[in-house]
């Protein structure tokens, strides 16, 4: 189990911290087909940018990786942010901009 607060503090906005968490915990865990448990205990708020840096790549590359990630102790706001990032990371982004 990984305490997100240890990496990001009570306000999880630092994308560098998210990238560290992604590279040191999430990616290695998923590569070994382990269940990665991210514990948000003590994290009051996060930003979309943080959640994107943490999760988007893994979800885009393999949406089934979500079967191997568990989010624990998320308050309603953090849960909402995770859901929105997980949602858009699975969208088809083939649409061209103008």
């Amino acid at each position: 189990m990984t305490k997100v607060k240890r990496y990001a503090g009570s306000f999880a906005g630092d994308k560098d911290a998210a990238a560290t968490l992604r590279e040191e915990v999430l990616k290695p865990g998923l590569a070994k087909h382990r269940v990665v448990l991210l514990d948000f205990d003590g994290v009051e708020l996060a930003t979309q940018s943080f959640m994107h840096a943490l999760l988007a790549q893994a979800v885009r590359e393999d949406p089934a990786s979500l079967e191997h990630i568990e989010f624990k102790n998320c308050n309603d706001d953090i849960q909402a942010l995770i859901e929105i990032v997980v949602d858009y990371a699975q969208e088809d982004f083939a649409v061209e901009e103008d």
Partner: protein
Amino acid sequence: MRVTLPNRSYLNDIERFLRCVTDDGKDDLTFVLPEGLFSVHPMVVTMIAAMGEAARSRGGDVRLENEKINSSTRYLERMGLFEVLGVERSITVQHPQEAAGRFVPLRQIRTNAELNDFVVEVGPLLHASPEQTRAVKYVLFEMIRNVLEHSRAEGGAYVAAQVARSSGRLLLGVSDAGQGVLESMQFAHPVSTHRHAIELAFRPGVTGTTPRFGGNETNGGAGLFFMKAMVLASSHHMVMVTGDQQMKLLSSRGKALQPRLEEDRVTWREYAHEFPGTSVGVDLTVSEDVGFEALMGDIRKAYGFNVRAANKEKYRARFK
């Protein structure tokens, strides 16, 4: 550049300030105080600080003209503007740059660590519960993080805030003297005007770090869109100034969140002079919770309109 401060300039009439900025063809910044009392939004304070940095980076000087000693100039002294500009003045205050609950003095933030500390420090100044300050902290953090990540400004972000206790409003300003939105977006997109660059920057899924719609592993292109959503939920204004363009997002109570700036209530203004970098000003209500979770639902819906809906069954996040 020559800046003559007007007697009043807030987000709803920010033009009053920007009309008073003239390009005199010199590398210097001449900052002229008005006759009598004046009152300005913190965004104006941060813009002047950024202009000062730009002038010095060009090799110019920063000068103060028409110095007066009154409550308005003492406010600017407490805000730390003269100190940041490095101008000589005779204005003195008893407790310079003290964050005493009415305003957050001008601060220069250059690193993520400074940003993290700042967001923690600003919380108690808002005199509200943690739940009520979530949107404010979110917007403040993201405004500054955008500068640190995209502006390439040597001086980082200039930040200032003011609390209007009677209305429960927090007035925020963040400015930089960096490359501006146009140059930042041109790294990945074929844009040629400041206005188009701003429109793209607000569009969910578009980021200046990659031409790929939807972003890359570190950028989703949703930061400004989230900020826009929070400002609109708070029924206030948001202003962005970069290059020769001013974009003013007006509150639109009751209207559904739109993915594109072109579909919002927005006014544009073009100026003869160019602002050297980017400035963003927002007003937010602190005294009432904007309904963060519900807002996320609106964002999710609006974001979905901007991308092709996936036809497959989606996996879901699992919560314990």
